[in-house]
């Protein structure tokens, strides 16, 4: 909704903009300053990209800033095969997807009881979920590590899936409860007049109406889980179970990593994230705004 507000505002300010364009010669100074800053921010990623497709000999003779003489894919291909990167991509994708779905479902159920049902003691539940959000993972990690070994889930993707479902849904519950607290009562009343029970009302009325917010939560949970490092590092020790960040992170300082291989590995770590960024950009920007209201 904020996005449309800006679009509507733009044409109205067209006239003074034109007048100002002629009056202010400094305005390109501001733009150039911002462009330089932007270049500084993006430069590390650009440097990684050009060196990921450069042959080691090209790098040795021409350095990191020259464009590659020819496109050299061997660095990426070799690295991909060496770490079995397809497997890591699948592990990350599967974990993030399942966590995002389950965490959204748990958030819906919690928020339905707290935001719409206003169950007794809901303030304390909300305080609990707020504190759960704040906890550093270090304070949970050792018992979880110990318990997962007891129940045979250590070094299994499911350990990570269960843990992150709970951690992400703590945030989701907190955010969604405030959304559901404002849920239009007319819709709920209409559903109950139609004879719908609580279960039906939830899935036929509440969930469809709040779909935009749920989409934002899903996006957040997916990307956050994809980017997680600490717990997957502890729990996923065998090669076949590693996620992308863990696989790349533990290879740092490895003897086999030279300059171009390292940038190749960084590039294939960056690309999926960029892809999500492009796909989800609209939801993401809206979602960050939603996070601000919490």
């Amino acid at each position, binding site marked *: 909704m904020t996005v449309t507000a800006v679009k509507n505002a733009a044409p109205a300010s067209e006239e003074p903009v034109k007048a100002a364009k002629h009056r202010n010669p400094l305005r390109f100074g501001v733009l150039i300053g*911002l462009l330089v800053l932007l270049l500084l921010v993006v430069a590390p990623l650009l440097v990684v990209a050009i060196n990921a497709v450069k042959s080691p000999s090209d790098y040795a003779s021409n350095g990191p*800033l020259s464009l590659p003489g020819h496109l050299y894919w061997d660095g990426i291909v070799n690295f991909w095969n060496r770490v079995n990167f397809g497997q890591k991509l699948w592990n990350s994708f599967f974990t993030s997807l399942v966590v995002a779905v389950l965490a959204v479902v748990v958030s819906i159920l919690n928020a339905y009881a707290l935001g719409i049902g206003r169950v007794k003691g809901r303030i304390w539940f909300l305080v609990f979920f707020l504190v759960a959000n704040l906890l550093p993972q270090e304070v949970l990690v050792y018992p979880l590590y110990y318990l997962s070994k007891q129940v045979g889930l250590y070094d299994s993707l499911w350990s990570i899936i269960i843990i992150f479902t709970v951690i992400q849904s703590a945030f989701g519950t907190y955010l969604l409860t405030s959304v559901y607290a404002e849920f239009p009562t007319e819709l709920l009343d209409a559903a109950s007049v139609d004879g719908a029970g609580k279960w039906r009302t939830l899935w036929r009325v509440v969930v469809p109406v709040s779909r935009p917010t749920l989409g934002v939560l899903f996006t957040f949970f997916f990307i956050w889980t994809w980017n997680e*490092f600490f717990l997957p590092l502890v729990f996923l020790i065998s090669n076949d179970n590693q996620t992308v960040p863990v696989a790349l992170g533990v290879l740092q300082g490895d003897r086999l990593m030279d300059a171009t291989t390292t940038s190749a590995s960084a590039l294939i770590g960056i690309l999926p994230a960029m892809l999500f960024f492009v796909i989800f950009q609209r939801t993401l920007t809206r979602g960050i705004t939603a996070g601000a209201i919490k």
Partner: protein
Amino acid sequence: MAGKKGYAVYLIPGVILSVAIIVVPLIMTVYTSFTKWNGVGDQKWIGFDNYTRLFEDELFWSSFGHILLLIVAMAVVPTLLGLVLAAVLFDYVAKKFSNRWASLFRSGFYLPQVIPVAVTGIVWGWILHPDYGALNKILDSIGLSGLARNWLGDPKYALYSVMAIMIWFQLGYPIVMFMSGLQRIDPSLYEAADLDGASLWQRFRKITVYMIRPEFYVVLVTTTIAALKIFGQIFVLTGGGPSNATLVPSYFAYKNFFEKAQVGYGSAISTVLTVIIIVLAFVFLRLQNRAEKAGA
């Protein structure tokens, strides 16, 4: 208000999961912090010994000292810089050029935030590598080889290098938050300011900063907490080294848990960290509430 009947059943899955994954482990860690335990065998109750040891441990104090500097790099600098940049983008670039330019800049600055922290660690670890890293090669090629350093490997510079990286990493988050907050501002406020002949600084102070106080608090709290929790970048960039120059509490706890098998001591470190984070969050919340009441 009294609760409506029949909704509590919807909390059951969430409560069971939270108890198993959050409540029980939390209690176990706090309990373990009062014991001596290497992860196998019996836990031996030793009272406050881990805590007294902690407060005498130089590494513990220096890890919190490092966190203070990282709060500057991850919370203070990005928030202030982000505030200025968001105001320039919203109030100047979007109006004098176009919204498209403003959102292009916003996306560009936000880019480092979407990349997994472990991967940003790899990117910078490579750029700052003393032998084959891009930065030293660039300094060489423009005749400034005297400035080349072992950026992450020299205890004198390692923490400052990490701080610079964290500013780069965090900057986009406040910009996005503040720009979305600015969209709430009624344009007529700015028009009125123009009519009254307000200076750019006055516009910034009296309208921009004033109107986005809620976002300002949220950004400051979340980035400060993120700084207290930092782990991934430290693990990948420096491993807490060289000679503990970049050691942070979370990594300190990790080392005690999984490298030294001093689980009781690691639990004490993470318990202290947790208490600090929760106290800080509630102090911030109080301040925010008070500021909102004063504003209303």
